[in-house]
């Protein structure tokens, strides 16, 4: 019984995950691939050559996206961690309201806020700046960071911290030596979500970045709706690669620590 289930799972998962990705992987190396050919009739590396040429701005976009995403992760932890801890470990008036408030960026459709956010940023003189783009990426990341980490903190006992403090450790020491190791698995997951959200931002970067800061999605997305599948595929693969790498790095954390995923397990 178990064996049949397992084999079904293997087939469904491997085919289900692999098949939708297969055409694009092949397309990145294809020159001519028309119905009804199962494989390209003519192959070519020209899309990859284009992707790495200066005109494509792919390499530039990749670097910018990476710098911004890493910085956003840092900011997200800085801002989200205390908030998550407060929500998880303290009861205060208006807590429910705050929790829903922090979810709002996920619920409200982008077009409502994008124009206004752009105007706010213009007034704050944050447009065309690295920090401005990072801040606008931070907005949708906060709900996820707070959601995940508040659950981690909910299942977290402060005994070790209290002990360390009574032994005379400074708050900073307590954080790095006691707290951080304790919440690390969940923190890695939350940081991955933050990275992915920032990595994939398009319209916000276009407006706030003002063309001064070109990220990978800005280069990629016009190709996705274009007719040259080969170019779109090559750039898509470059776009997806770091994300998969991040997944490999923390794959162990996902699906293992229940406190981590409890963040989604908190009602």
């Amino acid at each position, binding site marked *: 019984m178990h064996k049949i289930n397992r084999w079904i799972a293997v087939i469904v998962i491997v085919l289900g995950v692999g098949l939708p990705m297969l055409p694009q992987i092949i397309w990145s190396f294809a020159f001519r691939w028309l119905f009804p050919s199962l494989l390209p009739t003519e192959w070519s590396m020209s899309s990859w050559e284009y992707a790495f040429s200066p005109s494509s701005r792919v390499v530039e976009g990749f670097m910018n996206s990476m710098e911004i995403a890493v910085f956003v992760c840092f900011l997200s932890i800085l801002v989200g961690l205390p908030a998550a801890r407060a929500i998880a470990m303290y009861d205060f008036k208006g807590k429910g309201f705050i929790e829903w408030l922090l979810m709002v960026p996920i619920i409200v459709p982008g077009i409502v806020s994008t124009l206004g956010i752009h105007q706010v940023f213009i007034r704050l003189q944050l447009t065309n700046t690295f920090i401005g783009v990072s801040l606008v990426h931070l907005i949708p990341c906060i709900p996820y960071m707070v959601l995940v980490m508040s659950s981690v903190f909910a299942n977290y006992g402060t005994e070790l911290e209290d002990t360390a403090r009574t032994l005379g450790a400074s708050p900073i020491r307590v954080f790095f030596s006691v707290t951080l190791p304790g919440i690390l698995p969940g923190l890695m997951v939350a940081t991955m979500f933050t990275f*992915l959200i920032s990595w994939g931002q398009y319209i916000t970067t276009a407006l706030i970045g003002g063309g001064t800061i070109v990220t990978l999605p800005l280069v990629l997305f016009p190709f996705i709706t274009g007719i040259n599948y080969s170019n779109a595929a090559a750039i898509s693969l470059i776009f997806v690669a770091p994300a998969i790498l991040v997944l490999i790095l923390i794959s162990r954390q996902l699906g293992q620590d229940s406190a981590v995923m409890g963040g989604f397990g908190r009602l």
Partner: protein
Amino acid sequence: MNRLKLIEKLRVPLMIFPAFAIVVVLFGGGMISGLGQSVGYFPVIGLNEFTLDYYAEVLSDPGFLESLWLTFRLAFLSTLFSSILAVLFALVLRHSFRGSRLLTFIYQIPIPIPHLVVATGIVLLVSQSGLLSRGAVNLGLTQTPRDFPVMVFDQPGVAIQLTFLWKEVPFIGIVVLAILKSIGPQYEEIARTLGANSWQRFRYILLPLIMPGILSSSIIVFAFVFANYEIPLLLGVRYPTTLPVMAYRSYQDPDLGLRPQAMAISIILAIVAILLLVAYRRLARYAVKA
């Protein structure tokens, strides 16, 4: 003594403040402009008077209810199916068997892949001239693209559903899997020795434990699909379509006079989403307690 009390009092607000400030000032401030446009304040094109006309127009449009229903149906079915599939996969993957680590990793691959890239892949796979269709031709089952079943740009929205499932099943799945792995087999063992069959073991032991996880992750999935315009826009029929797509089309129209309408649709959408999610959460809490 007083200073300590002050610090204590300020502690929680200070911890919340940065996150709160960013969401309220930056996002909330941004929403004000959209809200303003929805009630007629759009000075750049000369609209300056408060009016609820745009909301009235949207709500009285005969296609509105149909689009709202389509939006709800898509979000509901996506959430339902991905939850069920996620649980099924989690039940298998929670055991350690040869290759289970690798399989679990493959299972998680969809998570970092952006929806637009997935949508392109699905079209290349299931369209009438896609890879599966070409397979059918080469196997002699079909001859022209028209012989292959329709799965994209179709009323039922099969490709749309597949795209969302592909992304959301692993998302809910890892939550459920995490909980199952941490539970351990003891409770089920006891239950089995007491004579419970597998369905009973699942229903009375496992389900209550994974319910909170399912419900919270499905709230995010529902909210996301409900507000998503890109996938139905790319893979669906032109008409009738979901509310987010309607809002997006109005927004993108060169006629800026249609923007207030786009804002009105979006805000109605957000309000409906919040109401549904609040109800869902209440229901879930009640179900868990029972």
